[in-house]
C-alpha cells in the first residue's frame, strides 16, 4: 500500500490546532464524548440531590447539610455546621443559603434541580454523545472518507455546544436561580417571571438551547452532506452499516425538528423580555398556552427518536459482530428506522392527551402512537433473529448490547400504557412516565453509549479499556439501574405524581415512603458506578492494553484504518465489495469478510 498525497503533506500541528480547535472529525468526536461525560456527571449530580429530597423530605443533605443537633440547638458540631454558621453570619445573601438553608432543599430549588437534570441529560449528554461523538467519529471512518464535508462547520458545531454549556452553567448562579418550569418549559409558567420568581435563569435556559440548536443544525447539515456525497467507492446506501443509517436519519430529524424548538424559544424570549403574549392568554386576547406545547412537542417527539435511534444503530453493530452472524433482516431494519422517524412527526399529541386539546384528536394520536410498536417490534425481533443460531461472545460491549435490547423491550412495552388514552388519563404526569423515559433513554441509549465507547475505544485511542473494570461497571449499572427505575412503574400505578418535592404531603402516597428510600439508595449506587467508567476511560487512555488494528474482527471500514487513526484516516481510500455484516459465510475459512476485502466478490450479496 502506498502513501498518497494526503498523508505525505501531513505536517506536525500545534497543540491548539491538534487538540483544541481541531478540524479533525475524530478529535471533535472525542471532544464531544468528553464534553458529554462531564455534563453526565453534572446532570447525574442534580438527580442525586433531588432523589435525597424524595426519600428524606425536608431533611438536611448528608455531608453538606447541617447536623440535627445544629438544627435543634444551634450548636456547632461538624464541619458542615461550621460552614452553615459562616454562611448565616455573612452579610451578603449566599447562593447556598437561598437554595438549601442548612442543607435542606427548598421547593424552588427542587423544581430547578429536576428541570436542569432533564435539560442537561437530554441536550448536553445524550445528544452530544450519540450524535456529536459517535456521529463525528464514525461517519467518515465507516463510509470510507478522509473527513467530514465541512470540517470548519464541524469545529463550529462543537464550540457552539461549549458556548451553550457555558451559558447554561451561568444560569445556576444568577439571582432567582436557574429555570424551574420543567425541561418542557410549559407556558405560561415559563413565560412570565411572576409565576416562578425565576428571572434570568429561564432566559439563559432559552438562550442556551437556542445556541445548542445552532450547533445541532450545523452538525446535521454536515452529516447529511457527508453521507450523501462522500461514501467510498462501492459503498452503496444499502451497504452502509446500520449505525450510519441511524445517524443519517437522525441528522435529517435534527435538521427539521430543531428549528421548531428554536422558533418557540425565540417567541418565549419575546414573551419574557419584550412583553409579547404568544404563550399566555389574557382577558384582552393574546396567544395560547397550548401553542407552546404544540411547538415544543412537535420538536420534542422527533427529539425522543433522536435520543434512541443511534442507540439502536450501535446495538445493531454490536450484536452481529459478537454473534458472528449477519444482522437479521438488514433492509427491514433500515425501513423500520425510517418508519419510526416518519411516525415521530405525527405522534406529538400523545404528550397532550390531558392538555385540553380537542378530545377527538386523542383517538388519532393514540392510533399513530401505538403504531410505533410495529417498527419497534420488527427491530427487537430482528436482534433476536441475529442471535439465533449464532456463536455469541459475551464481551463487555455485547453485554451492553444485550442490556440495550432488554431495557428497550421494557421501555417500549411501558409506552403502550401511555399511548392508550383511557389509561393515560390515570398515569399521565405520574412516575410511570418517569420510569418509561428512563428505560428508553438510560436503559436504551446509555447502555448503547457505554457499549459503543468500550467497543470503539481501541480505535479511538489504540488501547483497550480495562475489561475487569468494564465488567464491574456493567453489572453494577445494570442492577442499580433496574433497582432505581423499575419501582417507579409501581409508584406510577399508585398515582405518585412526578415533579412533587414531598410525597409525604399526600395521604394516598404514604405507602411509598420505603420504596422512595430504596430508589434513592439505588440511584446513589448507580451514580457511583459511573465513576468506575470515567476512571477506566481516562486510565485506559494512557495505561490500557495496546490494541491491534481490528481487535474484535469486525467487517466495517473503520477497522481498515491504522490505529491510532492518522489525520486523513486511510492511506488509500478503501473500495467496498460487500455489505457490512458478512460473518460466518459458508465455505469460508475465517468467520468474517471485511467490506474492503476484494476476493470473493461478488460471492455474497452483501445487501
Amino acid at each position, binding site marked *: 500500500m502506498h502513501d498518497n498525497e494526503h498523508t505525505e503533506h501531513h505536517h506536525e500541528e500545534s497543540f491548539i490546532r491538534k487538540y483544541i480547535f481541531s478540524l479533525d472529525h475524530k478529535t471533535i468526536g472525542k471532544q464531544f464524548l468528553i464534553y458529554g461525560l462531564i455534563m453526565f456527571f453534572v446532570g447525574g449530580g442534580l438527580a442525586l440531590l433531588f432523589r435525597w429530597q424524595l426519600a428524606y423530605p425536608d431533611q438536611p443533605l448528608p455531608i453538606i447539610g447541617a447536623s440535627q443537633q445544629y438544627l435543634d440547638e444551634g450548636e456547632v458540631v461538624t464541619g458542615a455546621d461550621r460552614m452553615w454558621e459562616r454562611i448565616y453570619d455573612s452579610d451578603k445573601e449566599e447562593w447556598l443559603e437561598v437554595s438549601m438553608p442548612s442543607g435542606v432543599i427548598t421547593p424552588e430549588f427542587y423544581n430547578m434541580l429536576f428541570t436542569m437534570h432533564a435539560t442537561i441529560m437530554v441536550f448536553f449528554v445524550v445528544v452530544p454523545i450519540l450524535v456529536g461523538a459517535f456521529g463525528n467519529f464514525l461517519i467518515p471512518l465507516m463510509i470510507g472518507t478522509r473527513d467530514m464535508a465541512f470540517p470548519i462547520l464541524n469545529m463550529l458545531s462543537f464550540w457552539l455546544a461549549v458556548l451553550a454549556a457555558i451559558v447554561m452553567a451561568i444560569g445556576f448562579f444568577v439571582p432567582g436561580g436557574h429555570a424551574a418550569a420543567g425541561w418542557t418549559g410549559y407556558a405560561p409558567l415559563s413565560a412570565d417571571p411572576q409565576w416562578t420568581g425565576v428571572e434570568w435563569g429561564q432566559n439563559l435556559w432559552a438562550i442556551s438551547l437556542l445556541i445548542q440548536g445552532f450547533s445541532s443544525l450545523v452538525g446535521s447539515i454536515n452529516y447529511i452532506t457527508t453521507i450523501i456525497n462522500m461514501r467510498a467507492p462501492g459503498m452503496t446506501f444499502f451497504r452502509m452499516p446500520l449505525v450510519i443509517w441511524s445517524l443519517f436519519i437522525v441528522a435529517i430529524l435534527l435538521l427539521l425538528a430543531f428549528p421548531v424548538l428554536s422558533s418557540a424559544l425565540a417567541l418565549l424570549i419575546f414573551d419574557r423580555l419584550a412583553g409579547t403574549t404568544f404563550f399566555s392568554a389574557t382577558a384582552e386576547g393574546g396567544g395560547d398556552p397550548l401553542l407552546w406545547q404544540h411547538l415544543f412537542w412537535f420538536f420534542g417527539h422527533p427529539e425522543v427518536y433522536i435520543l434512541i435511534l443511534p442507540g439502536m444503530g450501535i446495538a445493531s453493530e454490536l450484536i452481529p459482530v459478537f454473534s458472528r*452472524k449477519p444482522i437479521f433482516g438488514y433492509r427491514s431494519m433500515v425501513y423500520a428506522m425510517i418508519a419510526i422517524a416518519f411516525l415521530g412527526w405525527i405522534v406529538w399529541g400523545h404528550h397532550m392527551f390531558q392538555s385540553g386539546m380537542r378530545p377527538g384528536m386523542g383517538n388519532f394520536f393514540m392510533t399513530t402512537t401505538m403504531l410505533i410498536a410495529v417498527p419497534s417490534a420488527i427491530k427487537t425481533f430482528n436482534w433476536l433473529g441475529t442471535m439465533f443460531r449464532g456463536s455469541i461472545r459475551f464481551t463487555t460491549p455485547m453485554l451492553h448490547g444485550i442490556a440495550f435490547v432488554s431495557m428497550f423491550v421494557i421501555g417500549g412495552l411501558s409506552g403502550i400504557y401511555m399511548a392508550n388514552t383511557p389509561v393515560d388519563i390515570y398515569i399521565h404526569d405520574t412516575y410511570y412516565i418517569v420510569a418509561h423515559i428512563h428505560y428508553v433513554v438510560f436503559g436504551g441509549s446509555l447502555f448503547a453509549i457505554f457499549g459503543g465507547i468500550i467497543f470503539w475505544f481501541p480505535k479511538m485511542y489504540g488501547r483497550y479499556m480495562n475489561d475487569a473494570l468494564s465488567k464491574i461497571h456493567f453489572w453494577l449499572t445494570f442492577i442499580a439501574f433496574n433497582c432505581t427505575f423499575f419501582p417507579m412503574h409501581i409508584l406510577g400505578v399508585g398515582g405518585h405524581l412526578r415533579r412533587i418535592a*414531598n410525597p409525604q404531603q399526600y395521604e394516598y402516597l404514604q405507602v411509598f415512603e420505603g420504596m422512595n428510600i430504596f430508589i434513592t439508595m439505588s440511584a446513589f449506587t448507580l451514580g457511583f458506578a459511573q465513576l468506575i467508567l470515567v476512571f477506566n476511560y481516562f486510565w485506559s487512555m494512557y495505561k490500557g492494553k495496546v490494541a491491534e488494528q481490528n481487535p474484535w474482527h469486525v467487517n466495517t471500514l473503520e477497522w481498515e484504518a491504522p490505529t491510532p487513526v492518522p489525520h486523513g484516516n486511510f492511506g488509500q481510500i478503501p473500495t467496498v465489495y460487500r455489505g457490512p455484516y458478512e460473518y460466518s459465510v459458508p465455505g469460508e475459512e475465517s468467520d468474517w469478510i471485511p467490506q474492503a476485502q476484494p476476493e470473493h466478490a461478488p460471492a455474497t450479496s452483501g445487501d
Partner: protein
Amino acid sequence: MLQWLPENVSTFGQGVDNLFHAIYYLTLVVFILVMGTLIVFLIKYRHQEGKKADYIEGSTTLEIVWTAATTVIVFVLAMFSYPQWNNIKSQFPENPDVVVQVSGKQFNWDMTYPGPDNEFGTDDDLELENELHVPINAVVHIRLTSEDVIHSFFLPHLRVKQDALPNRFINVWFEATKAGRYEIPCAELCGFGHSGMLGYLNVHAQADYDAWVQERWP
C-alpha cells in the same frame, strides 16, 4: 403490580382499569416471551469451540408475520380504547345533577357553586377553597379553568385527570360510586407550591348532601 392502583370509585373508572389490566397482561406475555427467547438464545447459542454460527440473512416470511401480528394487536387494542376515551372526555351525560366551577390558582383549588339559580356570577354563588362536595351516584359536571398557570385536576380514585388552562373553560364529568373523602392533587407543575397543592373531594350520601345544601342555602 396492579394491586397498587388506588380503589376505583367512579362509574367509568372500571373501564379504565379493565384496559389497564388488559394491557398489563398483554405486555407481560410479550415480555416473558421475548425475554425467555433471548435467554434461551444466549445459553443455547453461546460461543463453543469448533462451532460456527449459521449464515442467516433474514426471513421475509417472518418479517411479514410479526409486522402483521403487531399491527393487528395494535388496532384491536385501539378499537377497545376509543369508546372509553370518548365516554370520559367527550360524550357527556346530559342534565347533570351538580355543576361546579373549579379554578386552579397558585396553589389552591377554588370551587364555585352556582347556587339555587344555577347561574355563575350571581349573588348566591358559594366559593369554597379546596373542598368539593358532591352527592353519590350523581352526574357531576366541572367547569375547569385556571387563574394563572396550567394546573391539572387529578382525581386518582376516580381516574379523572384534566389540565386547567387560563382563560379557557374545559368540561369534566364524573359520577362517584362510593362516599368518602378523596384527595385532589394538582398533577401539572405549577410553581414552587406545586408539591402540596391539594384539594379534597367529599362524596356524600344523598341525604347528607341535601343537608349540606340546606345548610348553605337555607
